[in-house]
């Protein structure tokens, strides 16, 4: 079980959090302007890299803050992103 540093609450157990997947993938500003293929790629394709990822986490069973942290998908080592 991960030990996650909530910027507001400090180190807490993973079970208090919900993962929100890739942090740097945002909704396109104008989805209507995208063709079907680009839109479907946005919907369903994820990078799933081996190594460092930046991802959203939600402290839903705590202070309810959404925040970004950097996690290594191989070692699960976690760094807080300021």
């Amino acid at each position, binding site marked *: 079980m991960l030990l996650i540093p909530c910027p507001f609450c400090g180190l807490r157990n993973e079970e208090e959090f919900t993962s929100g997947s890739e942090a740097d993938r945002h909704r396109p500003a*104008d*989805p209507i302007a995208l063709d079907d293929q680009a839109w479907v790629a946005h*919907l369903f394709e994820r990078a799933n890299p081996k190594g460092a990822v930046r991802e959203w986490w939600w402290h*839903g069973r705590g202070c309810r803050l*959404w925040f970004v942290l950097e996690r290594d998908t191989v*070692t*699960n080592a976690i760094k807080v992103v300021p």
Partner: protein
Amino acid sequence: MTGYRLDRGGRIDRTRPIEFRFNGCALQGFAGDTLASALLANGIGVVGRSFKYHRPRGLIAAGVEECNAIVQLGGDDDAPNMVATRVALTEGLDARSVNCWPGPNFDFGAINDRLGRLLPAGFYYKTFMGPRGFWPLYEWFIRRAAGLGRVPERRDPLGYEKRYDHCDVLVVGAGPAGLMAAVAAGRSGARVMLVDERPEPGGMLLDAPDDIDGHPALDWVAAVTAELDVMANVRRLADATAFAYYDHNLIGVIERNTGRANLRERLRKVRARQVVLAAGAIERPLVFPDNDRPGVMLASAALAYVERWGVAPGRRAVIVTNNSSAYDTARHLKARGVEVAAIVDLRATPPATALAEAAGAGISVHVGHGVGGIRGRMGVTALQVAPVGEVGGDWIDCDLVLMAGGWTPGVHLFSQSGGKLRWEPDLGCVVPDRCVQAERSAGACRGRFGLASVLADGTRAGAEAARAAGFAVRDVTPPVASNGPALELALIWEMAGARGRRAFVDFQNDVTAADIRLARREGYRSIEHVKRYTTGGMAIDQGKTGNLNLIDVLARAEDVAASAIGTTTYRPPYTPVNFGALAAQDAGPTIVPWRETPMTPWHASAGAVMYEAGATWRRPGYYPRPDEDMEAATLREARAVRFGVGIYDSSPLGKFEVRGPDAAAFLDRIYCTRILDLPHHRIRYGLMLREDGRLFDDGTVMRLGPDHFFLTSTTGNADAVYAWLERWHKCEWPALKLWITPVTTVWANAVVCGPHARDLMARVTEGVDLASKAFPFMAVREGKVAGLPARVMRVSFTGELSFEINVPARHALALWEALIDAGRDMDITPVGSEASHVLRVEKGYISVGHEADGMAGPDDLGLGRLVARDKPDFIGKRSLAIAAWNAGPRRQMVGLLPENGAALLPEGAPVMSVEAGRDPSAPIGFVTASAMGPALGRSLSIAMIDDGRALIGRTVQLSARAGSQRALVVDPVFLDPQGARLRS
């Protein structure tokens, strides 16, 4: 094997005899015995039968690696799959062997051993393939033949608990390395936890005599333990197993010595800043014909039985070895009075010092020899000495054969932590290489076997861990000890096979070396596949003794180095863990924390049948009268709503406040429905789509002010909707000024519904004009109901005239009782969730989770008119325009009127086409909900059917389970399609 109790020695209390039973036989041991040592002391050689061939089996080990002595405990200790070496002997203990009937000495299942040729690796996969339909029959037999024990029938009379724990340095293992690590870390002031699976500290020093600082090693253990026990910052848990190493240094520890008589076990989930793994090593067996006969055991185990429990496992031993440790073992055994007939040394040139030692002790050594065979089915009577690589040779009479195949480091926790292993070519085993978490290994579990180097390694590791945790470490000097002679191990474990004789690799699952070679010939090359196909390493012991031999046999068959094979994955738990300990306090009524509405005391007193209806809310299903069953009560309640007045507790609905200058703009993007133009004090039915255009949730949106909205969601999705709203606001549109507050339990709701609802409301409402013109459908008013401040909404989930009254939760019970009182002469009827379901089905309203199953889009559900397609954007909008969306048939919501109007169609029943040219057996949809319509007075259903709206007015076919009947496809709104009733 003819074990017996020695006159002296052992760490048992001979003044405290203990009576116990084994397979119904009354026996006696002493305090301090394990079940295993007591059985050996009573001369019991056969402790059980093997899993597949039902071969007689004796003890092979003295510790957690034991893989033959699996027992079922009875009485208050009722538990299956217990390992005799881990069961402390207690008064009245009642143990039985498993895998045998009627008993281990005579077992009908032993026929499997004769049929062995017919039971190769992968037997089940090959045999039970067909004919089709026979599997249930096979399964009945297999289930009876398989299974090592019997699940306890009653609740454990003792309790369990679990808790979190924290420390700076966790040391796993209280052998010489662990004790030194704990001392080094403890002296620095760090908070230390020292955890050891045995009841006593000392580790391998308990099993084999040795000297430290010129005195018996156990004197040193006592002194060090005394020092640790007075340190306020050190906690020592004995009889406690660290069984799992999870992410971020979370270690699961099961404590059996709980200090409380009514508590069997305690689970500690320990977050350690730093970890020292000093788990020791397990001796490796050798692979030779009939190496599973009772009387064949690990050399270290024999020594342990002698030293710890004063039990000689046999009278005349032969030691088979590939390294120098056997010579020490022989000397110790001889000193304790166990005759050593010979040492069989697989090495071509053992060290001269070892040979000289054996000669001095009068023990004959067979250099360059192995075992050709074993005589004695129920217990060893003789061993055949064969030159390495050959078969045949002289027989030596003996009743005990000891295997010394080197050591397997206990890398289990290290590997679970994510650490990478590396092959140690000289030792023929894997050792820790690269660490991933904040841990380090010390001593035998990283391939250090000499006592002096183990003590030094432990000291280093303890100091390192304390330093890494931020503590200043003073110099700690390990005590003086000897490393003893080097192992000088020869990489030979398997000996030449004898025709018709099995040589076992995994004893518990009956996997032989031949099985592994067969698996390879059949194409299984990956060690993970070979493991699963042969089941080698998959028994209760998880291959603690067998895994490295499995790799060795496979490597030689492939003609590659063992390092090229790799290892299987080590997973928690290290040793079996009781479910009781994992559940602990979360059992019985506390397993789910049920939620209840404020009206629950009234529901209970009215005799409501309560059960979960989503999101852990326990609420009334129906309120049966004395002579009613569920069906009758539900119909009566539903008819009251259609023709009189009902009252429904809808408090569990998800509720949210959204406030702020951008609240309207935000909700306009969240809902596909138009929100921006929603007038003050009006309500709109809103759909939330996911970004892929499918329906996510439905509910109402109410405007209480220019910047103030109140939303409801479905009960089951309340948490998900809240997370959804927060996510879109905080991650995608943080610039929008608003805040979202979940208020599901702040407000409680009572819904008054039915044609007489307005009459009832008129009796209790102040300050609200209830006339339809003044207070239309989908409006909200604030006033007083039953003297309580309330919001009243005209929304409807039943299709009838309805008033939903929201009051602060603390007033809800008073409101409910006042409404019941006021409506008594109108026969006001409380309505449960069953009737609510029936009413919504008859009205053709969707239910999220039934019709909206995650695949359906708004138009599929007949709700296309609610999608404001001219809005510039909303979540899901782009997906509704994907070309593929409309390329094929859409599964659409329709109503069904089955031929038999007296019976309900089962929900989920497939629906088939009767059109010419269509496959009559291919489902074109399924039934999602069925009800006995209270207004229509007949059975009706909602279904999702391919292009279903085009089939309205035609018939479809239902499957056999649904009565093999036809049904008429109709519009899903069975009642009042114009909505005159709800708008009245």
